[in-house]
């Protein structure tokens, strides 16, 4: 491993201070108008060495932009960030030597050659000692469960295999800090579980991991601490348990409905004992998630307010991290964002 920039052992592995990133785009063909789109609006956080830190937020919240600034792919519009004590703007090469990163999805691999060729190529680019390459690649293939498949062309890999190859690629040069940007996106449940085990093993090996995800259970199961990001801002930060405390005194009443009207939902929201109502669309039904601070005693009253709406299952339960997340997102979004968050749940 490379030495950190400073001798202080309590220096955070990742440090972001008031990071801002604005994208500039244009509209119109003949009369072009410049448009500045803020993606990250001043976020600050620290990740300690050996910690698994989660950035949790909906699509478009600014998670990937934040990671891209930290891995030196994007310049911040404002603010500063350091990784292992090195500035991500001024000391890009020092940062790059110390980090590995994995983006979710199908892209980022050479499809027309084998998985082994991909790893050998990136091992060269990442400056892995030639004498070390063979052993390192074999160990990583074993770790991600691709031993025996490495000679096959990547174009024939399943999505899970590609994702595991991504992880192996990101670890080739034994980085101290690993950035994982929605690594389990699109994976089947078994593939996602295997990937989570791999991520846990990284932390066991002493690496610092920054993980972005929009899967609450994934963040809850893996992360030491979580920052909830929405609309380019961090709206809450803490352990999974501390985030749940935001809704700890609430009860969730789940009501399955078929064809519920906007008026009925408005009637629920108007109830003095109801704190929040969110809706999840299913194939044929809608699940109303009613948050209340007075327990399930109000259930009959709520059902009466739904009038003629056809009702399915009704369940009362304790709040989860997902409820806390929905509450945080809905309460911090713009009007448009709140509507979207309420619909996607």
């Amino acid at each position, binding site marked *: 491993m490379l030495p950190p920039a400073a001798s202080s052992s309590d220096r955070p592995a990742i440090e972001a201070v008031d990071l801002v990133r604005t*994208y*500039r785009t244009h509209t119109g063909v003949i009369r072009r108008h410049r448009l500045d789109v803020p993606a990250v609006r001043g976020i600050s956080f620290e990740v300690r060495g050996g910690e698994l830190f989660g950035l949790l937020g909906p699509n478009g919240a600014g998670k990937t932009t934040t990671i*891209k600034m930290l*891995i*030196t*792919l*994007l*310049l911040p519009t404002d603010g500063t960030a350091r990784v292992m004590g090195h500035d991500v703007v001024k000391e890009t*090469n020092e940062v*790059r*030597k110390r980090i590995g990163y994995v*983006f979710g*999805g199908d*892209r*980022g*691999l*050479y*499809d*027309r*050659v084998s998985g082994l*060729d991909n790893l050998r*190529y*990136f091992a*060269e*680019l*990442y*400056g892995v000692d*030639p004498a070390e390459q063979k052993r390192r690649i074999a160990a990583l293939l074993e770790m991600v469960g691709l031993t025996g498949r490495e000679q096959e062309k990547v174009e024939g890999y399943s999505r899970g295999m590609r994702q595991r190859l991504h992880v192996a*690629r990101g670890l080739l*040069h034994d980085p101290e800090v690993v950035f994982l940007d929605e690594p389990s996106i699109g994976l089947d449940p078994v593939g996602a579980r295997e990937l989570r085990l791999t991520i846990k093993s990284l932390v066991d090996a002493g690496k610092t991991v920054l993980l972005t995800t929009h899967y609450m259970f994934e963040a809850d199961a893996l992360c030491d601490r979580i920052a909830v990001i929405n609309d380019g801002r961090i709206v809450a930060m803490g352990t999974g348990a501390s985030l749940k405390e935001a809704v700890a005194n609430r009860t969730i009443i789940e009501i399955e409905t078929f064809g519920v009207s906007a008026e009925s939902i408005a009637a629920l929201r108007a109830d003095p004992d109801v704190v929040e109502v969110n809706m999840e669309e299913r194939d044929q039904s809608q699940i109303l998630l009613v948050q209340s601070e007075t327990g399930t005693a109000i259930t009959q009253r709520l059902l009466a307010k739904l009038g003629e709406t056809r009702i399915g299952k009704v369940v009362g339960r304790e709040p989860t991290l997902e409820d806390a997340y929905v509450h945080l997102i809905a309460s911090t979004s713009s009007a448009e964002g709140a509507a979207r968050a309420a619909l996607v749940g």
Partner: protein
Amino acid sequence: MSATRTVRLVWFVTWFNVRMLLASEFFILTTFITPLIFASLAFLLFESGGRQGGQTLMYVALGTGMMGVWSTTLFGCGGAIAWQRWEGTLELLVNAPSRYDFILAGQTMGAVVLGFYGIVATLVWGVVLFGMPLEATFPLILPLSLFAAVVSLGSLGMLIATTFVLYRHANALGNLLEYPIWLIAGLLVPIATLPVWVRPLSWLLAPTWGMEAIRGAATGTEPPLLAIAMCFGLAVVYYVLARVMLVVVLDKARRDATLALQ
């Protein structure tokens, strides 16, 4: 990075890019078939114009071969970067701890080396179908001429490739540069026949000197050593310009977030 590591890196990237390009059917068609079509057309045109003889045939074969090399250089550099952008690997290469100019040099060299197949193919084509005598006036200098041409075209390709890194639609520039360079660099028509004001432009181009170096060694019509020296000199100038451009281009790409755009 040590010199050994640098050479190894450039060699490895060159080899990898050759493999990647050979995996593309479109590239194979462009590189392997097109020079033969160019050569056939040119042989027949010269023949119908009453220009015959071993020297003429050799002039045509080398010229059409070089046309293929230039096309492959443009396609290999631009196409490879466009394809990497599409596959999402461009960000990984640019963001690797290794210097990106070495990576780009290796990628460009891969394309140019493959392109030189065109010269071999058109020579064989000329011998087999048109009875061209295969002989070189300076056989010992010819390999040096070929090497000088590879290096200078590679450096020019690298300079052009810097724009491909920044702009996702730079392929249009690549296409635009194909035919004019054939003409200006004197690949099929002697530069002396071009308007006087075009000639300084020709002298700035690697294909001009690469062509002169190879033709000079093969046919003895021009002294090859000056052209060889110009190839190496231009290669240094192109490389320095490419490095400066890369600093600007990569900074702009990080500022404008263009690397991931398809």
